[in-house]
């Protein structure tokens, strides 16, 4: 064998075998006060509780905001928007345990049309955040729509700031900085069963804005949830009751009920009270709702509100 052959063997053998195989300054006054008063000024136009019927998240969202006089009533050009969605469990979108990615994406698009500077979608999953972001399909949807998305896990310093509550059950909590500093805070819960509180909606969704929620479970859970609702009132709660599980919540999977509704309201208690009725529960039977109403967070008797169905 000569050199030429040697080269052939050496190179081909080698190759052949290889081929085998924001700098926001903290505000001193909470910004929702401004929004709230703004809304109240427009109360002639804006109904207090909007219930949109349908099964297409995008069109339902648009209809809802139309009934509220347009998204520009809530989002002003240059605003920072924070959306508290629910992607706490590693479930597929069709399993109806987490915020519908289409809904989140549609909300971001509307906010962008209204000129929002930045839209952040957040949650604090109690299971693995990386898996949640992927499996629920929400990360992909939000990024494609032009929003930001992240989880608050492992970020005590980065994402939380202490807030005094001086309640009976809660004295102080580490609360989401993003929410406190946002111009607009949309609470985007999904209506579904929950082992501990029977049903989870807007107020329960906001438990994901607190660092040490384990503490909630050691004390009076319902009172904690109610007192937490006094920290920052959402600019608007959009309760997703299109599809949701009626058992095995919050983790799922479970039997899915199609309610085909999207509920909009500036009164967080009223939205949840309506949702409870939808779920087949008396609102007053949910302790956290009752206590929150007593604390003046909102109206338990949702029928007293100006209800508009579209």
């Amino acid at each position: 064998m000569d050199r030429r052959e040697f080269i052939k063997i050496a190179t081909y053998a080698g190759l052949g075998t290889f081929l085998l195989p924001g700098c926001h300054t903290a505000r001193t006054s909470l910004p929702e006060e401004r929004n709230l008063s703004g809304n109240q000024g427009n109360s002639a136009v804006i109904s207090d509780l909007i219930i949109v019927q349908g099964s297409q998240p995008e069109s339902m969202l648009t209809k809802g905001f139309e009934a509220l006089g347009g998204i520009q009533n809530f989002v002003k050009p240059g605003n920072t928007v924070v959306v508290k969605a629910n992607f706490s469990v590693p479930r597929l979108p069709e399993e109806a345990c987490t915020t519908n990615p289409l809904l989140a994406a549609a909300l971001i698009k509307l906010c962008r049309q209204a000129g929002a500077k930045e839209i952040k979608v957040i949650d604090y999953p109690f299971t693995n955040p990386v898996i949640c972001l992927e499996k629920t399909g929400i990360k992909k949807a939000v990024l494609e729509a032009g929003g930001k998305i992240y989880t608050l896990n492992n970020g005590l310093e980065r994402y939380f700031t202490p807030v005094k509550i001086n309640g009976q059950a809660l004295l102080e909590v580490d609360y989401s900085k993003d929410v406190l500093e946002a111009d607009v805070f949309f609470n985007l819960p999904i209506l579904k069963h929950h082992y501990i509180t029977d049903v989870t909606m807007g107020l329960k969704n906001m438990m994901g804005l607190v660092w040490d929620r384990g503490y909630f479970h050691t004390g009076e859970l319902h009172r904690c949830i109610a007192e937490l609702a006094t920290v920052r009132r959402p600019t608007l709660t959009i309760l997703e009751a299109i599809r949701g599980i009626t058992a095995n919540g919050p983790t799922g999977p479970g039997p899915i009920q199609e309610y085909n509704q999207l509920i909009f309201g500036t009164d967080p208690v009223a939205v949840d009270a309506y949702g409870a009725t939808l779920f087949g529960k008396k609102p007053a039977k949910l302790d956290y709702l009752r206590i929150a109403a007593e604390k003046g967070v909102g109206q338990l008797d949702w029928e007293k509100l100006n209800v508009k169905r579209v």
Partner: protein
Amino acid sequence: MRLLTLALWRRIIPCFMLVAVIILFWRHQYPLPADANALLWFSRLDPILLLAEWRSTGVLPGWFWLPFVMIAITLAGGRLFCGWLCPLGGLLAQLPRRYSRLQSIPWLYSSRYAWLLFTLMLLLAGSNWPVFLTPFHLLSEELFRLWKGTVPWLLAGILLSGIFIYPRFWCNHICPTGLLLAAMARWRSGRLVVDSVCSHCGVCTKVCPTHSLQIMAGLVAEDCMVCGRCWQACPQEALTWQSRAVKKADDYSSAGLSRRQFFKGGFAVFVAGAGWPLLQPSSAPAVLRPPGAVAEEEFLARCSRCSRCVKVCPSQCLIPMPIEAGITAFLTPSIIPRQAKCELCLLCQEVCPTMAIESVPLQQVKIGLAILDERRCLVWAEKKLCLLCREQCPVHAIEADEYNRPYVNNKLCVGCGGCENGCPLKQAAIVVRPI
């Protein structure tokens, strides 16, 4: 021009393998990209892994042809795997060749086949520690150390030996794969041979990274990895590729290995190998293993400590066991639910190269069993509305009685540790125990 091509390929192919292994290992993450399992296929080039798999399952896996191709190549032309495909070799081959007196300690060299025999005995007696020493597994584990920001001691040691003794010292003395292929290469049919025009200038030994040419000896040992450096360097063009078996007396390597030494080594190895099972701890420490892990004793035998499962785990619930746990358990993955729970993504099953973690559907996973201490549980003992364990349980194995007090449905519990991890008490009232 041709020569340049060979020199270039000699760098490109092994470096490519090294970079590929690094990238593939790094890509062991959630969600696992499809290309990441190329690392699994690379690992399967290694006959040692085939032997380990055959030992543990008793059957030849579907990919058995791959190591057989490697063996065939070795029998045809020598240690081409070591010279051209091994990623660790690719790294070592880049080291400069120096002279060191350590490189030719005769007893060290002559006892290497005894060492090979010893590792093979260990393997067959039921320990995959020898697999750990093979390049794909060792590199994975050491890359994991780097990724974690800790010192890869072993890799550092191998590199130092390469710098201070000679580049392929590890490959010729410790690496079971290298030694196995070297043993086979003794019968190779094609090899480099030094013919009589040799002027004994010694240039070839200066460039040989494998220490397979000795000055004046004029012979190429079975350690030759066919890199072609000597062949290019020889001013006399004395090296030729010959496709014939050289007479045994010509073979330099056999000069260092007498029959008596061989038997001595063999006997010592046999004793050590037979004694190994006795060294195993009779009662293994009770730890939680990854989902799909085979029974503890067999798990300890199969796991090669490659750390790929630890790397891929998205919740980082798999933790390599410390040396304090004993040498048999050292570096094997375990779960400590209080630190992190298993999310049941089951990616560890996909990346494990040794069948230590088998592909088991979620319904059959039994990492352990949750046991609730009712005397301390907040709901039972203090009538609080806690139920965090129930919220956390992904398989709904925590049920509640009419007073909303939780209890564990043993049939459903997979032992992921979610409950233990979530329990808000300082010392969890619900604990997952291995079964």
